[in-house]
């Protein structure tokens, strides 16, 4: 009996010492991904933001990757259980998982990017991907009119290839369509989903088939699958639009612009809040055109590739549209469930 008590006592002592020493150690942040790093897109962007936080605040960072849905919940719970100060779940696919588990760890701070979880210990960051896609759609609709450029045909058809068929991608699509139709009401938008975020072979095949059906520019919203989309543009001498990160330089001259979803900024902001003690659970960070949370790249890579052929007008139009969205003159529609309250 006494022996047991002793063991329990000594164990709690060890734990106590452990907690005390931890208080002095740096803020520990865990990033849980529903995929892998190296997608040059969503996951890498979150990682970049946190690497910036490592530099600025000296936090300790741990990244858990998996594309197997069964692992996601385990990874999240494991990190919370390990007592990380902030556990960031980076993607909309963690929404239900976090909803279920946040309550079990009231002392752990959570963050979710690209989804909303209304719990007292979760900060959510959502992107107006519809607004960013609106600009991308407008850019694509303009581009398909520049027949003088190599690879642009006379058909008014543009394309869009997504990864999995999930609501957040439809929010992209809604904005893309609206932007394209704002420029040209008669435009035809081809839409395909690959059903996976890690199948570049299928991504390429879908893109080739859209090119064959008359599209000359295709927007990539497909993470790892998207690498195949960009490659198709490069090989066929056609055009693509990148997503999440600045993908313009992957195939210079083939990628007109990228829609930047500043996932890095959202991850960085959450960490900053924890470090500076301003973290407030239940809060929603809206990242939109107005606060620079979403935007297009400046197309400088494309400009350099095309030289004098580059239609400078497109930059002016995009800038004008950005202003109009910012001051509310244009209201970009959202997909059901993504409307802001």
């Amino acid at each position, binding site marked *: 009996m006494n022996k047991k008590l002793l063991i329990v006592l000594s164990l709690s002592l060890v734990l106590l010492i452990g907690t005390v020493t931890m208080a002095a150690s740096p803020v520990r942040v865990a990033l849980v991904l529903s*995929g*892998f*790093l*190296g*997608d*040059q897109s969503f*996951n*890498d962007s979150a990682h970049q933001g946190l690497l910036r936080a490592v530099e600025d605040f000296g936090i300790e960072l741990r990244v858990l*990757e998996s*594309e197997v849905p069964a692992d996601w919940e385990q990874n999240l719970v494991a990190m919370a259980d390990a007592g990380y100060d902030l556990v960031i779940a980076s993607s909309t696919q963690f929404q239900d998982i976090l909803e279920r588990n946040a309550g079990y760890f009231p002392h752990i701070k959570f963050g979710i990017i690209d989804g909303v979880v209304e719990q007292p210990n979760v900060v959510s960051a959502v992107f107006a991907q519809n607004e960013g896609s609106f600009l991308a759609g407008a850019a694509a609709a303009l581009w398909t009119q520049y027949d003088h450029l190599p690879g642009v045909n006379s058909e008014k058809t543009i*394309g869009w290839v997504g990864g999995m*068929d999930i609501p957040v991608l439809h929010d992209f699509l809604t904005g893309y369509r609206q932007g394209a139709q704002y420029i040209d009401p008669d435009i035809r938008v*081809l*839409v*395909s*989903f*690959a*059903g*996976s975020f*890690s*199948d*570049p*072979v*299928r991504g*390429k*095949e*879908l893109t*080739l*088939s*859209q090119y*064959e*059906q008359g599209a000359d520019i295709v927007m990539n919203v497909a993470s*790892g699958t998207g*690498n*195949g989309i960009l*490659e198709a543009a490069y090989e066929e001498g056609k055009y693509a639009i990148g997503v999440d990160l600045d993908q313009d330089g992957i195939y210079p001259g083939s990628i007109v612009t990228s829609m930047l979803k500043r996932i890095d900024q959202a991850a960085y902001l959450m960490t900053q809040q924890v470090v500076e003690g301003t973290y407030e659970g239940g809060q929603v960070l809206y990242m939109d055109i107005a606060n620079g949370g979403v935007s297009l790249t400046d197309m400088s890579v494309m400009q350099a590739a095309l030289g004098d052929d580059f239609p400078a007008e497109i930059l002016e139009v995009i800038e004008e549209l950005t202003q109009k969205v910012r001051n509310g003159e244009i209201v970009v529609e959202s997909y059901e469930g993504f409307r802001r309250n």
Partner: protein
Amino acid sequence: MFSLSEIFTLTLIRATVRMSTPILLAALGLIVTELANITNIGVEGIMLVSAFIAVAASYWSGSWVVGILAAVVAGVLIAALMALIHLKFKADVFVAGIAINLFSLAFTRFLLKNWFGVAGSFYSPRISPIPRINLSFLQIHPVIDTLFNNYNLMDYLAIVLVFVFNFLIYKTVWGLRLRFTGVHPAAVETGGISVTTKKLQALLISGVLGGLAGAHLSLGYTTQFIENMTNGRGFIGVAAMYFGGVAPITTWLASLFFGFTEGVGARLQTMGFPSQFILMMPYVATVFAITFSMIRQQKKLTQKQPF
């Protein structure tokens, strides 16, 4: 909203061929092992490792030929590992296959991180891709040119291999012995031929073909490596092999059928069909194909037995 003429174009035939090649290469290897009574589901893992090695070798050497050769060597090594597990240590072949597939997924991740310091995907302009072949004598007519010309080298190679293996299996002593290894191993042993050696040969050959399939994914069809980029194409190869009745030429047709479902799917989606339904097609086709071939097999068996 859509018209048939827009779906059934010449380019659909091209897409069909393109999408069938990795399945066909995998299935050819599977035929050889299946004839020796080994259902080698490890082909998925063999393809994945080979795809990675192909990219790595091509990146370092700047030559796609080296890339293909390295992929084949990698495929053979993984197949040899499988042979060790199954033939030497007598593990169940399905268990060995699953082990190889899980191992390959983690192993390629590990190498990606260690060799290139990246996670998830690797691509670089320094990776030299397998070229497309332009046969000028096919340019006589635009239709012929669209249908037959300018495929990737591997697309042509796969078709050549169909006939090579058809010859090897049905017209050579080696093929006869291989087929008997599966049908009646005791008779083969009585004839003074080692069943284990035959099975080992079959596995190593499936390693070569799995290696080619992997190299095609990462150097032929695309020029990059992404984790788990095989995405079940090895398993669809298993289905194609059964659907094709474990014979090269019919398996080729079966692979084309699977390629066709992918190609049609890509076109139907843009016509506004729900993506969930379209993306299901290759897998539904797989279920039908397997069911169909199993029914056929059952019939054969009952016909053979008089009572």
